[in-house]
């Protein structure tokens, strides 16, 4: 009995779609943004910054993060990656820079695609600034979330904290907000004991296998 192929996820960037095609070609299973890793907390224990690697390759136990921005613009991503490695040393992750991706396309004779897939041209959604992420996370942590769905109106987008609650195997839920303490956005050590390590409410990850 054959099953219908799972629908492709909505990739945020064309380069991610191309990497997915490459992985499919070589029959390497992948999931897209299955996990969100909190990497910074406020004094009250709420997540104010997190990191969702683009791909997880389950057969290799490896996360892959793709960035096709120019090297000088990936400082922030490098910082997040360093923080992730500090906090989760057991997590294996590889970062593909723009040059790496370009060389990969060259190897496969598809260099002509490189410019179309790089930088902001290939993005499906506008880039979000770090400030906006922190502000949204703070607002979400202050109790504007509706359960775990993180919807907060049509003029906002889900914050990393909300995404961390909505899905993912590894996440920590902050304690209820209390008066006082350091300003939101202050990076502090995480709670000694994770308050929640449960799965996303729907319990699913999107596991895409190549069509056989």
């Amino acid at each position: 009995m054959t099953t219908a192929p799972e629908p492709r996820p909505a990739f945020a960037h064309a380069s991610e779609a191309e990497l997915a095609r490459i992985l499919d070609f070589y029959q390497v299973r992948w999931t897209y943004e299955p996990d969100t890793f909190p990497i910074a907390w406020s004094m009250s224990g709420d997540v104010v910054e997190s990191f969702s690697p683009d791909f997880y390759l389950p057969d290799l136990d490896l996360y892959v993060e793709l960035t096709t921005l120019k090297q000088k613009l990936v400082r922030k991503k490098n910082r997040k990656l360093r923080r992730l490695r500090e906090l989760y040393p057991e997590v294996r992750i590889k970062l593909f820079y723009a040059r790496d991706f370009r060389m990969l396309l060259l190897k496969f004779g598809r260099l002509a695609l490189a410019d179309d897939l790089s930088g902001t041209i290939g993005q499906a959604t506008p880039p979000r600034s770090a400030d906006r992420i922190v502000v949204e996370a703070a607002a979400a942590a202050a109790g504007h979330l509706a359960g775990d769905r993180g919807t907060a109106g049509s003029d906002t987008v889900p914050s990393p904290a909300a995404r961390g609650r909505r899905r993912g195997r590894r996440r920590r839920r902050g304690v209820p907000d209390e008066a006082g303490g350091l300003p939101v956005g202050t990076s502090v050590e995480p709670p000694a004991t994770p308050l929640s390590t449960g799965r996303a409410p729907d319990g699913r990850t999107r596991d895409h296998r190549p069509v056989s």
Partner: protein
Amino acid sequence: MTRSIDLEADIGEVLLSEEAIAARTAELGRQITADYAGSNLTLVSVLKGSLPFMADLMRDIALPLRIDLMEVSSYGGTATESSGLVRIIKDLSASIAGEDVLLVEDIIDTGLTLNYLVRYLRGKNPASLRICTLLDKPARRLVEIPVDYVGFEIPDQFVVGYGLDYGERYRNLRFVGVLRPEVYTPPE
């Protein structure tokens, strides 16, 4: 106007000279001879890039051995459009069941092709399966597979020659060199 190809002028830097390749291949041959003494050795070469390395390596192995050739489609090649999946273009000509197989590669980069090949060959029940590569380029490795014999670990540069190609050319260079970016960079 089609750009004419000047094999050696298109090389920016010679990374590995003919002499260095020959010396290292001889070393690998001696090591393999010692390791496989008394075994039923079959060298499996992955076309097309590993052809020169295979031809030289096998002559540096002082053992009775068999050779066989395989070819696998590559992403972005003409085979891609039809199936969307990697496939065997040319399979082994004989069974490797019970054989001590040494897979001979030209270069290991992402490890994606090697990962597929290893899974495929293991399914054919060899007595053992090891890997020998002339060049190891770990910078973009996605699949970590233990490699038993490595000729040279090289930096993250696009190399051609001694079997390696760009657009099916430069394979016949006697050395391994770094292709000048102007060769593969589209004109403005």
